[in-house]
């Protein structure tokens, strides 16, 4: 009962393959090219343009774009739509992302594939609505309660808003998990040249659906690997969907320690143990460098600028950009850190992923940060200074 994806039909409404457009619009394009046919959201700066674009585009491919009464309703609608076989998405910013947290956990627990775009703005609370930030990174990891794992990607350009949003839908289906696209107000509102993928580049990874007779179907038993097949509502494969601890049949088993332990271990393990295949990093190593930068999202543009300035001055420096932030590419970061004495992590927050980096390198290199809040992105010169004179210390908090 899945939607038939028709590349040409989508491209007919997106227009020319090369465009000069905004990150938010590019997320909408990426969603449609990722097979998304259901969007539910609530307007919020700086994410509104995603909803606005989809309100215009989605009806033209026969999809649904709904403005809900709030963000809780939005994520709820997305989860429901996913169970009917659709590829579904919502988009929001900090305050809305906070409201969605409980149901993100519900999507983890019920193994519902869905995509959530967080165009991060400066918080806490309503904060600075029009200003970019990367302050929701730890919320992406631990915003919903209980042990869980999910996938988060961090686009650094308008092109990546297309590419990673598209990818997010495939990963959501493959792992039956919420996938977070952690962009920010700068990337969301920035305009750059994009090249939309060709038909050959767009091959959707289909949801694995049950094929056995329906009376033999056990909804949460992983037949192959650790991701169970998922039956769309209405296809005769009865599935009881609950956020309560459930056995393989999907039925509540809330006082059974073994069932709970096994379930949560599988839910975490199916993502965490796939870290190698989920790892996407960009490494720019410099022979002889003793200092390296680890960056993600918009701050990696600042870092790339700093690398260029430092090398012009003859200062060797290496740079690792995280494209996948969760599950955290620990092994890649550890290998990157091996020859280094110091690692500088620039972030548009007071220090979040720098802690994860410090944990990953386990003392083999000193981790420092360039932490900036207030609305302006980090100047490359600030990172240059940190490399040459030392960054801000990272303390346990």
């Amino acid at each position, binding site marked *: 009962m899945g939607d038939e994806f028709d590349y040409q039909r989508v491209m007919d409404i997106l227009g020319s393959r090369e465009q*000069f457009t905004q990150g938010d619009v590019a997320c909408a394009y990426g969603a449609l090219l990722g097979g998304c046919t259901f969007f539910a959201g609530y307007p919020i700066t700086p994410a509104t343009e995603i909803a606005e674009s989809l309100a215009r585009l989605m009806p033209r491919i026969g999809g649904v774009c709904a403005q809900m009464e709030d963000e809780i309703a939005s994520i709820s609608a997305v989860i429901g739509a996913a169970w009917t076989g659709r590829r579904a998405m919502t988009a929001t910013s900090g305050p809305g992302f906070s409201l969605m947290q409980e149901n993100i956990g519900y999507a983890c627990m019920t193994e519902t594939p869905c995509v959530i775009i967080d165009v991060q703005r400066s918080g806490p609370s309503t904060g600075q*609505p*029009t200003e970019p930030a990367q302050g929701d990174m730890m919320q992406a990891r631990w915003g919903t309660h209980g042990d869980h794992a999910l996938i988060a990607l961090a686009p650094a350009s308008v092109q990546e808003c297309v590419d990673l949003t598209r990818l997010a839908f495939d990963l959501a289906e493959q792992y039956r998990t919420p996938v977070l696209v952690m962009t920010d107000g700068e990337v969301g509102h*920035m*305009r750059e040249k994009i090249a939309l993928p060709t038909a050959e580049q767009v091959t959707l990874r289909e949801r694995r659906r049950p094929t056995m007779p329906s009376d033999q179907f056990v909804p949460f038993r992983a037949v192959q690997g650790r991701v169970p097949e998922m039956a769309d509502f209405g296809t005769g494969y009865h599935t009881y969907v609950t956020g309560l601890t459930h056995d393989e049949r999907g039925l509540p088993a809330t006082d059974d320690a073994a069932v709970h332990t096994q379930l949560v271990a599988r839910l975490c393990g199916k993502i965490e143990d796939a870290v190698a295949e989920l790892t996407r990093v960009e490494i720019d190593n410099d022979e002889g460098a003793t200092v390296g930068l680890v960056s993600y999202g918009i701050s990696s*543009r600042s870092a790339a600028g700093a690398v*260029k300035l430092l090398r012009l001055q003859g200062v060797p420096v290496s740079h690792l950009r995280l494209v996948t932030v969760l599950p955290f590419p620990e092994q890649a970061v550890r290998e990157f850190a091996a020859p280094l004495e110091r690692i500088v992590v620039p972030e548009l927050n007071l220090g979040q992923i720098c802690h994860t980096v410090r944990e990953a390198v386990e003392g083999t290199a000193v981790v420092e940060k360039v932490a900036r809040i207030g*609305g302006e992105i980090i100047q*490359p010169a600030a990172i240059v200074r940190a490399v040459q004179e030392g960054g801000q210390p990272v303390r346990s908090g």
Partner: protein
Amino acid sequence: MSDRMQKEIKICGFGGQGIILAGVILGEAAVKAGYWAVQTQSYGPEARGGAARSEVIIASEPIDFPRVTVADVTVALSQPAYDRYVKDAATTDGVVVIERDLVEAPGSLAQPFVKTAESVGNKIVTNIVMLGYLNGYLDLITPELLEAAVLANVPAGTEDLNRQAVRAGRQLFTGGEGEQ
């Protein structure tokens, strides 16, 4: 590195003057002309009023840091925006172009964008007049490509007015080169 061309442009004014649209059109035209371009913006929560800023970087190669570090050209269409984004900004260098009737800034190139817009029919196209002038100054994009980008980004029914505006802006540049 020496072959790398990069121009950094800052356009500022108050919300409602079409500051951001001007940057968008310039960036789009630059991409059509075969360059790399990135356009960014800063504005407050107000739809009208408040300071608005649009930044455009045009380069011969991919652009890493998307914000203006040192502006080659800065355009200010309002006094508060000039005071905030030009006078007190460390990132201003190069030439500063101002709207003659709205900004006082000694040493800048003062241009009658508003008057020119009124003379072609409506001061609402002040931003497009400015764009025609700015494009002449930058000398990177043909007037035809800019005009096409303007027309692709304005509301239906206003094409003639905008076409005249962008041409009048260019005329301001070729005719005068600006008065001190």
